[in-house]
């Protein structure tokens, strides 16, 4: 038996995708009795077909989907007839779930595109067709659904078909079959309809059973990306991977890409044995002689047919994140088994999904398709996507959120001279912050002695560290004894003291840290100076507020008593002024709030 034909079912929302596949499964006897009972029960509760069973509920596997009557994520469902096995990806039609549709399309060889006979080709029909084609789907079926609602009218069908053929031609899709159907009643799905005498072609199922899908890699040389180096002991080194094209046997000369070194295949390991040959699709372990250096992300290829290696590409991208794709931002790029840093150096154009026209675009938003120039941090072995799905398809991962934000296909390598060179790793504040997965800031606590700054600062830092943040606390204790050991308590020295602390805090924020500064810092001008060193949102002035009387009453170090006795001069609040902030970012009244409550307030502001 051959592996299943994988196809994706796509089209706009409410064109009847889940109903269509539900109907096919049902009519093929592919639904278990207990599953059917479940669907009947769900139909009474959520069904959209009155008293009739709503077969879409066979596929809508999430509770939210059944309740809202829509498809949110792609469902993968296997089924079989006497002639062929299938895995169908039932894709959501809503534009906001395009990335889930792309997930389903990426592993499909064929797409069944639905169109509502009353509405024809919608922008979403075109978007799905374009994405499916971009991600390697080579065969298309246009199923014009709800033919009952247009009276089985031949002209209505032909006019939609002609619109779709224009679209297919523009995109460059060679193979399109067109079938008039009614998913609700099953006409032309698994049995020929008596109501479309003008249609003499196969039913949808007959077409799916018969269509020939050839992998594009036929005739290509041996290529295998290395997934894993198996090294149980010093005596064995095996290179594990899945063959993406060609065949390999012991004695074959191979080349390691990108290094370019060559070796001979010593053996192909199989379970408790070795094997004589491996072909496209096989997961294998190779041993080589001599034992050249090979790591995950390398590609082992036919020695005489080296793979192209490049770090500048033209690529097509589907953007899938709420935050737009911006030129110059660094992403992680995963191509076969290799991960590198990548940046889009130029957006050549955005593609209008409806008519394919090229639009100028400063960035790509969610669900946009575009053509870009792409630069990788290191040269990578690859093949154009049109030649190899496995060696030319890539995803982009956001370095801070780890989300899969884009998916694309390498079109060709660009000549290095014609392009900007990869800016070899500008390590800046943004990069350091992303590494620490946090937003660096300076939290500047000002207030009288004994107002509660140190207590709050310590608690705050502990809380931040508990949440996995990287912090540093600057206070009198760790600054006065080292960095500012040479400073006294004159007015000039106090200004210099604050200046140095502010500058150090700025450097630490640039290093990616959340810096808590706990200093009396009595003068507005000093605090304003400190603020001026930071980006507007990176500095938070936190007023730790307690009256002089309250502080003097607390007086944990006995300083107020000494100052009142005249043993300490220039003591803030006694014989030196404190200028309270006029508009602090956070105001903490420590006479009314516990330290824990104060920390909570600050944490909320940071969230």
């Amino acid at each position, binding site marked *: 038996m051959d592996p299943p034909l994988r196809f994706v079912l796509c089209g706009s929302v409410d064109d009847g995708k889940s109903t269509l596949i539900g109907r096919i499964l049902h009519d093929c*006897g592919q639904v278990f009795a*207990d599953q059917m009972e479940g669907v009947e029960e769900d139909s009474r509760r959520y069904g959209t077909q009155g008293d009739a069973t709503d077969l879409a509920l066979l596929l809508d596997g999430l509770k939210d989907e059944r309740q809202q009557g829509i498809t949110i994520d792609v469902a993968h469902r296997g089924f079989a007839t006497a002639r062929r*096995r299938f895995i169908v990806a039932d894709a959501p039609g809503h534009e906001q779930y395009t990335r889930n549709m792309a997930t389903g399309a990426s592993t499909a060889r064929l797409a069944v595109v639905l169109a509502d006979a009353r509405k024809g080709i919608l922008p979403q029909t075109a978007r799905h067709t374009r994405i499916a084609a971009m991600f390697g789907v080579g065969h298309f079926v246009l199923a014009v659904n709800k033919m009952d609602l247009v009276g089985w009218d031949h002209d209505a069908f032909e006019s939609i078909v002609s619109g779709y053929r224009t679209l297919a031609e523009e995109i460059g899709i060679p193979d399109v079959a067109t079938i008039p159907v009614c998913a609700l009643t099953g006409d032309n799905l698994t049995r020929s309809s008596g109501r479309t005498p003008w249609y003499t072609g196969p039913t949808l199922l007959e077409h799916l059973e018969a269509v020939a899908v050839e992998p594009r890699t036929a005739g290509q040389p041996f290529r295998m990306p290395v997934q894993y180096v198996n090294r149980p002991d010093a005596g064995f080194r095996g290179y594990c991977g899945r063959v993406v094209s060609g065949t390999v046997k012991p004695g074959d000369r191979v080349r390691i890409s990108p290094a370019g070194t060559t070796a001979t295949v010593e053996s192909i390991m199989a379970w408790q044995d070795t094997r004589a040959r491996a072909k496209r699709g096989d997961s294998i372990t190779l041993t080589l002689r001599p034992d050249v250096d090979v790591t995950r992300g390398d590609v082992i290829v036919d020695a005489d047919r080296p793979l192209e290696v490049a770090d500048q590409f033209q690529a097509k991208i589907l953007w899938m994140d709420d935050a737009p794709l911006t030129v110059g931002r660094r992403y992680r790029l995963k191509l076969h088994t290799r991960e590198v840093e990548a940046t889009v150096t130029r957006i050549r154009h955005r593609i209008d999904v409806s008519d394919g026209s090229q639009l100028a675009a400063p960035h790509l938003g969610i669900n946009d398709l575009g053509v870009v120039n792409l630069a990788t941090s290191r040269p990578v072995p690859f093949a154009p996507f049109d030649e190899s799905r496995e060696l030319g398809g890539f*995803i982009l991962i956001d370095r801070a959120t780890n989300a899969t934000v884009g998916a694309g296909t390498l079109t060709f390598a660009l000549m290095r001279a014609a392009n900007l060179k990869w800016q070899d790793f500008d390590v800046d504040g943004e990069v350091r912050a992303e590494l620490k997965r946090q937003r660096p800031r300076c939290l500047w606590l000002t207030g009288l002695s004994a107002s509660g700054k140190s207590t709050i600062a310590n608690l705050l830092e502990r809380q931040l560290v508990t949440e996995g943040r990287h912090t540093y606390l600057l206070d009198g204790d760790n600054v006065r004894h080292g960095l500012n050991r040479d400073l006294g308590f004159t007015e000039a020295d106090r200004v210099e003291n604050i200046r140095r602390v502010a500058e150090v805090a700025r450097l630490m924020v640039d290093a990616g840290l959340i810096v808590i500064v706990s200093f009396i810092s009595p003068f507005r001008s000093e605090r304003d100076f400190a603020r001026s060193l930071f980006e507007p949102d990176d500095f938070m002035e936190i007023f730790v507020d307690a009256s002089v009387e309250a502080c003097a009453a607390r007086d944990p170090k006995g300083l107020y008593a000494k100052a009142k006795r005249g043993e300490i001069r220039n003591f803030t609040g006694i014989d030196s002024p404190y200028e309270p902030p006029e508009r602090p970012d956070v105001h903490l009244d420590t006479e009314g709030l516990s330290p824990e409550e104060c920390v909570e307030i600050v944490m909320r502001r940071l969230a």
Partner: protein
Amino acid sequence: MSRYGGGQTILAAVDAIFGVMSSCLSALESEAIEIIREGVATAARPVMLYSIGKDSSVLLHLARKAFWPAQPPMPLLHVDTTWKFREMIALRDRVAAEAGVQLIVHTNQEGIDAGITPFTHGSDHYTDIMKTVALRQALDAGRYDMVFVGARRDEEKSRAKERVFSLRNGAHQWDPKAQRPELWNLYNTRLHAGESLRVAPLSNWSEPDIWRYIAAEGIPIVPLYYAAERPVVERDGQWIMVDDGRMPLVPGERPQLRRVRFRTLGCYPLTAAIESSADTLDAIVAETLAAEHSERRGRLIDHDGEAAMERKKREGYF
């Protein structure tokens, strides 16, 4: 026409008899091995959940193949509710020793101390404490970031919606509305601290595929899958096996000997047997191909209200 296509019954039987792997099985095998290797290559602390059932048996076999001649570089984790069939525990210990892998057995001791049993607390509460909570405890203790599971998309319709590499948050919860796009075979395995991935290498396998593969590869399975005379009682139209003396019988209820087998195995009081005479792999394949009910019908916990499985997964059950 049977669910899996009438014409294939004979072919399947031929495959099973001669131990030949069809191109379909060999493609499924290669895909699963690729997924296992990808998970292990990008994991800090991988682990394989091992439930001793047929899918787990296939998964372990694939892991052994993926890394041969080395042992699979990850431990097996079995969440033992203490209510597993005795034949299951016997197979577990034998197979783990044979494969040369570390076997971690975890039981929720707090649940035992609180006297939680499937009879006294209802299947929903029992499953939550002894399986879901227990699993979370074991995963937290091991700080595992890549958790291999034997789930198949054809088992249940919320599973059909799940990615091969399925992201779980720090509390092991699945958020079905925030799944990462999964393009081709490019799996995004990047994680924040505390997050983990549930990896399902058997996603695209069907129940008959599992049986054909077990036959083709000669994988040892729990004998309960084969039909034999066993002591059972009938409850709510399902055959429940009396595996030991802990099973409380209602007045008038007497265990009777019936020729039964199991399509799926779990905790014995929560797993129903089917009447069957299939006592060879060929007969099991044939019976599976002709089945009118899904295998999950015999799992009582799937019927705890609408969307039961999706809710359990959101809570961290596998």
